[in-house]
């Protein structure tokens, strides 16, 4: 007797084309071969403040993952959740030291670089007080500092990818940040040869290509 196949509930990702936090999760989904329904939340129109979205995620950030009954918000939390629930293509090595290195790289991106270029910081505070040129300088200052630190850290441990010859969590967090640096913040990548090389390598990988902001379904035409 054939067993009834149970259609797995589809994963849903509430995200925004340009959100680098969302891009990380899109890469992780692709690497793990997970299909998902793309639910666009337009941050430029403040859709994260819609009551429906707030009910789902009271913190009102993107991305948010819905996996059946489970709702997980925050890209770091989402990726660690996916890593445990869908262990195919593991993003964290078993070796504790290498695992710690991956977490450290992810943490440097999420806590020392990305927040300082982040939309709310810019709009809520700086925009009124700094002009546009100064906003760019502010973001570049922190990106350059962060990239300098990352370059130092990975120079000696990078192989084909950031922490060896396999794609791991560090790569998932690095690429969106490097992408932002190049396409949005005019960072001179010649100062960061390892990061530049990694970016070239990521751009050859279909799972990374498919996650790029400019080709997402909610990206404006001509992005």
């Amino acid at each position, binding site marked *: 007797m054939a067993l009834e196949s149970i259609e797995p509930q589809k994963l849903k990702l509430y995200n925004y084309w340009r959100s680098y936090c969302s891009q990380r999760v899109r890469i992780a989904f692709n690497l793990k071969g997970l299909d998902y329904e793309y639910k666009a939340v337009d941050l430029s129109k403040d859709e994260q403040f819609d009551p429906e979205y707030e009910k789902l995620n009271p*913190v009102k950030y993107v991305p948010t993952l819905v996996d059946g009954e*489970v709702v997980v918000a925050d890209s*770091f939390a989402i990726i660690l959740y996916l890593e445990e629930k869908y262990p195919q293509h593991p993003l964290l090595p078993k070796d504790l030291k290498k695992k710690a290195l991956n*977490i450290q790289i992810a943490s440097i991106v*999420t806590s*020392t670089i*990305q927040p300082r270029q982040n939309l709310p910081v810019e709009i809520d505070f700086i925009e009124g007080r700094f002009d546009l040129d100064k906003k760019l300088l502010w973001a570049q*200052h922190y990106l350059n500092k962060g990239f300098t630190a990352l370059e130092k850290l990975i120079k000696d441990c990078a192989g084909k990818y950031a922490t060896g010859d396999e794609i791991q969590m560090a790569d998932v967090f690095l690429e969106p940040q490097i992408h932002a640096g190049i396409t949005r913040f005019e960072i001179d990548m010649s100062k960061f040869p390892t990061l530049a090389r990694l970016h070239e390598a990521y751009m050859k990988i279909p799972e990374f290509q498919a996650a790029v902001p400019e080709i997402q379904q909610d990206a404006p035409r001509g992005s």
Partner: protein
Amino acid sequence: MADQGKLTLYSYWLSTCAHRVRITLNLKGLDYEYKAVDIVKGDQSEPDFVRINPMKFVPALVDGDTVIGDSFAIVLYLEEKYPQTPLLPQDLKKKALNFQIASIVSSGIQPLQNFVVVNYIEQKLGSQEKDAWHIDQFNRVFTALEKLLNGCARKYAVGDEIGLGDVFLAPQLYYVIKKFHMDMSNYPILARLHAAYEEIPAFQAAAPENQPDAPSI
């Protein structure tokens, strides 16, 4: 209990990131040698420290011949290597909530209060603006945290056991309440959690004023 090698923690008494690691070490009953790095004076650029941690960040943990920088990485390393008093529940949803709280603190608040950033703001905009900006940031993120905790906090941040979320929240709350004297009346859950953490010996021992490099009053 895993065999403990010799642990050394490079720490600054007032660093909230180091504070998180101190709480974790205490909760897990791990002895460690405390090595003070005065980040205000620039000790993190001294050759001896740079050799340990070329990133020049504090905290850094040395466990035998393993060196780990970054508090998130250190805490998760300790969680795996020394599983006593686990900080992460088995339940995936509760585990994710702990990660989310930790991530909101480490990427949503702390980077914006870091003294390097604060000095930069003060330089560009003056002292009053700096304070206004601080309060603005804290309020923004505390509002978000309070909403999140409303759905999951019981005795502690996620349920009735101390978890990773508490380890990250406690230093942040300590900082805004004790150093900033922030009005917490809009954040009753956060205020209650702060009071609860103050009662726990592992948290008390990790408090900045109890560290060897804290200035004597």
